[in-house]
């Protein structure tokens, strides 16, 4: 079930009142939300709801065990068992075929013929997000940062809650579980903010991301050798905008919907293409993943506590695994390693962007932005291209200067400009609009979302492509 569809509107139209009607009866409300979330997940494959339940149950029990045991070897063993169980499921579904193929190829090169059975099971939707939520809970319990939840229902809801289940944002256990303890306060609904997040998300996904994808990016990446250099340059920028509009749309809608149900989710994007360094980019892009990787991978590896060389190693390992998290392919690994190398380079030369305390001249700031945006856009090619060969074809044609004609229509250029506005409009404009909306009369409050969705429907393409991050 996709957010910008009629079935989701019907689904939410039923979930919203029932959730609030049950608000005073917290257990019943949570039971209902779990049932609704499983129904939402079952829309893809019913059988994977069993996996969702099993993962929640196992993590609930293991966390209880971690809470009861005193510090020592048995507790450490149980912790690693929990980590292995979560990563084992992820590895089986997502990485087994990739590593098995690499093993067969390596053996083949060495002249040894090996028979390996590949698995033919569809990848459960959102398995990576599910694993990250579960691991966040287990690690926090192990660190005694939070108490293990005594309620299985709370854990079922934490892992399956439908707004964040499929593509985040990754909500930390300590931030979510506290919200399940008591009934939600209807006064916490920030209607203006939720409405603008949902409408902005619909516009970014249905209009910007969909048109850029179907009418330009997909054809260009499908056959880079038969496009001009200009097409490939524009395709690279268009994909950068498409993936931002697609992914940020999902999480914006998720945050808005969760707020309408009384739950608080963290911000996930903060004008990432305004970043003036790669480090700054990662503070603005998929912020819930960046902070997850920092807290649960980079810092446990040692962070920057053991000298420069170990810091560089930790950055590279974190970014390589962050790349592989997106999928089992050399392209994602290269993408992660390139970002890791850029972060290390910035650290060596002290080019860490807006986080730096040293004042910058406007020219230096503009140059930093220019290099950062181009580095990010160029590395997106590895992210988008289906294979490593396809990425190399893309780059070789793009830099060969073969032809400066373009297949981009004026309509696509207009869509691109509209999408770019999402980074040009100052955030305070949105804040002002939200405040004005909150103080507007009821008819205005109704007419604004109606008119916006009406116009989106007028200009929408036929059919809606799934969100890019559903595959992760």
């Amino acid at each position: 079930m996709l957010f910008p569809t009629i079935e989701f509107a019907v689904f939410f139209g039923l979930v919203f009142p029932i959730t609030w009607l049950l608000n005073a009866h917290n257990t019943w409300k949570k039971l209902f939300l779990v049932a609704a979330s499983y129904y939402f997940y079952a829309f893809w494959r019913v059988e994977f709801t069993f996996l969702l339940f099993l993962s929640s149950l196992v993590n609930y029990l293991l966390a209880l065990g971690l809470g009861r045991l005193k510090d020592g070897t048995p507790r450490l063993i149980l912790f690693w068992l929990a980590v292995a169980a979560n990563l084992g499921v992820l590895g089986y579904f997502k990485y087994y075929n990739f590593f098995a193929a690499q093993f067969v190829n390596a053996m083949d090169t060495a002249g040894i013929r090996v028979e390996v059975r590949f698995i033919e099971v569809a990848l459960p939707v959102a398995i990576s997000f599910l694993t990250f939520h579960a691991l966040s809970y287990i690690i926090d319990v192990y660190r005694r940062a939070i108490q293990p939840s005594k309620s299985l229902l709370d854990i079922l809801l934490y892992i399956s809650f439908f707004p964040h289940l499929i593509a985040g944002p990754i909500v930390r256990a300590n931030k979510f579980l506290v919200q399940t303890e008591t009934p939600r306060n209807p006064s916490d609904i920030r209607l203006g903010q939720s409405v603008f997040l949902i409408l902005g998300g619909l516009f970014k996904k249905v209009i910007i991301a969909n048109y850029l994808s179907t009418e330009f990016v997909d054809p260009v990446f499908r056959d880079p050798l038969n496009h001009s250099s200009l097409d490939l340059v524009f395709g690279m920028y268009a994909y950068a905008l498409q993936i931002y509009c697609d992914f940020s749309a999902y999480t914006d809608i998720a945050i808005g919907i969760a707020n309408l149900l009384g739950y608080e989710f963290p911000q996930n994007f903060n004008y990432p293409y305004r970043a003036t360094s790669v480090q700054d980019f990662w503070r603005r892009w998929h912020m819930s993943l960046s902070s997850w990787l920092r807290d649960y991978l980079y810092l446990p590896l040692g962070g920057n506590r053991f000298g420069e060389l170990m810091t560089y190693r930790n950055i590279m390992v974190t970014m390589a695994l962050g790349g592989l998290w997106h999928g089992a392919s050399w392209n994602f690994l290269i993408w992660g390693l390139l970002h890791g190398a850029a972060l290390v380079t910035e650290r060596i030369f002290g080019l860490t962007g807006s986080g730096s305390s040293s004042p910058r001249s406007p020219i230096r700031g503009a140059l930093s932005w220019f290099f950062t945006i181009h580095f990010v856009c160029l590395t997106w090619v590895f992210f988008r291209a289906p294979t490593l060969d396809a990425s190399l074809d893309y780059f070789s044609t793009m830099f060969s200067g073969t032809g400066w004609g373009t297949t981009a229509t004026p309509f696509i250029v207009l869509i691109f400009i509209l999408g770019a506005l999402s980074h040009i409009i100052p955030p305070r404009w949105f804040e002002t609009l939200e405040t004005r909306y909150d103080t507007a009369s009821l008819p205005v409050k109704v007419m604004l979302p109606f008119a916006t969705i009406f116009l989106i429907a007028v200009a929408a393409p036929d059919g809606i492509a799934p969100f890019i991050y559903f595959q992760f």
Partner: protein
Amino acid sequence: MTDAKLPDIDRHRTPPPLRTAAIVIYATLALLVAAIPQSLTNWLREMKSSELQEKLLPGAERLQLLSERAGFSTPYRRCRELFLALKGSEDN
């Protein structure tokens, strides 16, 4: 210095956020169904054959007929035609 408080009259004037949210959600959905009624009928037609579909589809078709007769669906049709003409494409 004491905290500023809203006068009672203002507090009473502000409707509860939940009620406002509910009105906004359902009024928006109702207006969309009236303005673009074919979206609901098309969606129901594409559903797998079920008892629910059999029950809901005739109602949705009646609603579409009413909306068309009253002219509620005309702005969407005209706007869509204009958009497609400007873009130079056709609906599937």
